[in-house]
């Protein structure tokens, strides 16, 4: 998708893939809802939605094209199966929290990136969710440790995220974000924690599965060349 479009965000898309697959194929039940906050990883979202049959696989080739439902950042009015328009960072958790405060009978999931934890709006939502005891709110943090211009540690260190969330009266579960059984068991546990919201800190690898992208901030927003594309697909296929 990113190769064909000539633009997009491969690093974050690859770090978030397993969580998105788990959400769409195993976790989300009929009344549950999912808010993607770090909308720039939408190539992964669109691919998972196509695999699930929510959008046509043929449409994937239209990503970012004029008139496509698959916008460069996801848009709710153009793609009906998503909950929220996203892309500008730090907004998704608050929208998920607002929804969760009203729909107490459903589980509301949200994915955020670690980079967007720089945003004040995000932490305002952290406080809101704790104050209103949103035990039905479950947040995945794609902790890939990379943001646009470098590592999270260089650009704006987040300190100890686990302790920060705990100090804000959130439940915290730490997992390997590429391990399906860890993702699923974390969600099972989070669902039992009914008095306060839960964050699943998912340690991931930016650009996972493509050796030359892994951990390299240059691949935040860049399309591969013909040669890079070929090599990346070979590596992903090899790793199965």
């Amino acid at each position: 998708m990113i190769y064909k479009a000539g633009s997009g965000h491969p690093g974050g898309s690859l770090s978030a893939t397993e969580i998105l697959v788990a959400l769409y194929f195993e976790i989300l039940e009929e009344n549950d809802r999912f808010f993607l906050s770090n909308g720039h990883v939408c190539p992964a979202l669109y691919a998972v939605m196509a695999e699930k049959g929510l959008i046509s696989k043929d449409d994937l080739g239209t990503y970012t094209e004029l008139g496509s439902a698959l916008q460069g950042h996801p848009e709710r009015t153009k793609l009906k199966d998503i909950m929220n328009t996203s892309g500008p960072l730090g907004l998704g958790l608050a929208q998920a929290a607002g929804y969760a405060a009203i729909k107490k009978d459903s589980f509301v999931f949200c994915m955020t990136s670690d980079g967007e934890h720089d945003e004040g709006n995000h932490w305002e939502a952290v406080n809101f969710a704790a104050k209103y005891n949103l035990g039905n709110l479950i947040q995945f943090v794609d902790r890939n440790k990379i943001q646009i211009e470098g590592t999270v540690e260089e650009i704006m260190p987040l300190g100890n995220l686990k302790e920060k969330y705990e100090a804000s009266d959130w439940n915290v579960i730490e997992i390997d974000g590429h391990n399906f059984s860890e993702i699923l068991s974390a969600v099972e546990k989070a669902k039992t924690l009914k008095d306060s919201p839960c964050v699943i800190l998912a340690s991931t690898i930016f650009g996972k599965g493509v050796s030359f992208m892994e951990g390299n901030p240059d691949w935040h927003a860049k399309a591969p060349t013909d040669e890079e594309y070929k090599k990346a697909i070979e590596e992903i296929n090899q790793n199965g």
Partner: protein
Amino acid sequence: MDKDTKLKSVRDGFGEALVEIGEKNKDVVVLTADLADSTRVKEFAEKFPDRFFQVGVAEQSLVTVAAGMAEAGKIPFTTSYAVFSPGRTFEQIKVTVALNDLPVKIIGAHAGFGASMYGATHESLEDIALMRVIPNMVVVSPCDFEEAKKATVAVAENGKPSYLRLARQDTEVITKKEDRFEVGKVNVLRYGEKPEVAIIGTGPILVEALKAAEELKKVGIDAMVVNCHTIKPIDVEGIVKAARVCGAVVTVEEHQIAGGMGSAIAEVLAKNFPVPIEFVGVKDSFGESAKSWEELWEKFGLKSKNIEEAVRKVITRKRT
């Protein structure tokens, strides 16, 4: 003004109507950023505690949490001072409310010079401009207590992202309960007999426009006064009609001239029926502290005498 004229505020009209709507429509929820009392939602909070959310001094969360609630089927009213929301929350409003086309209501209180004692940081003179450039957004600026009540009910029911601009100060109630109010349609407050100029204003400053029209009458100048309470969608037909009848327009607002109601009217007339226009408003400057908003209306040239001067100017331009 008569000694016994009753002064009431736009924000009180809002607060009263909100409670009435809350009783009728259980989907109405209210969120505030630590300003329940001064934005007049305290009564709603006391009557409907389950539908009231205090988000703290966190305007960004105020708007984005409300967007999530609207996604869940609610009609959220979010209240803060206009300088903070929409002042601080422009992007949240654009992306999570307007681009999602959700019926979140942005209530900008203390708009204009009403918070005069707090100085420039708390005086919102840019909010109309900010909100009227966003697609899907409805922008309403009621002129008095009665109109605020009607405007509150109207935006609650319109199913659209909406901005409601509220003044803090107690001012003369110039509309009546039985007056027609329709979002997107101007109201003529004073027809005149053979008006030479249409004074088109928005918000409580219309009191000054009416005063100016009375003064002008004494010197033989007949003026129509038009209440443009809805800035978006703008009433093209009503504005063109006023311009056609009068042949000259003066716009009046407690807001920057740049980007405000006057600009919206100039856009309409430039395209449809060009006539000479003069603008009364704040001329590209910040506000400042004063004991009362009236001192600032004086200092920034928003009084009836300033409107009269603009009328004379525009009539001269029309005649030459």
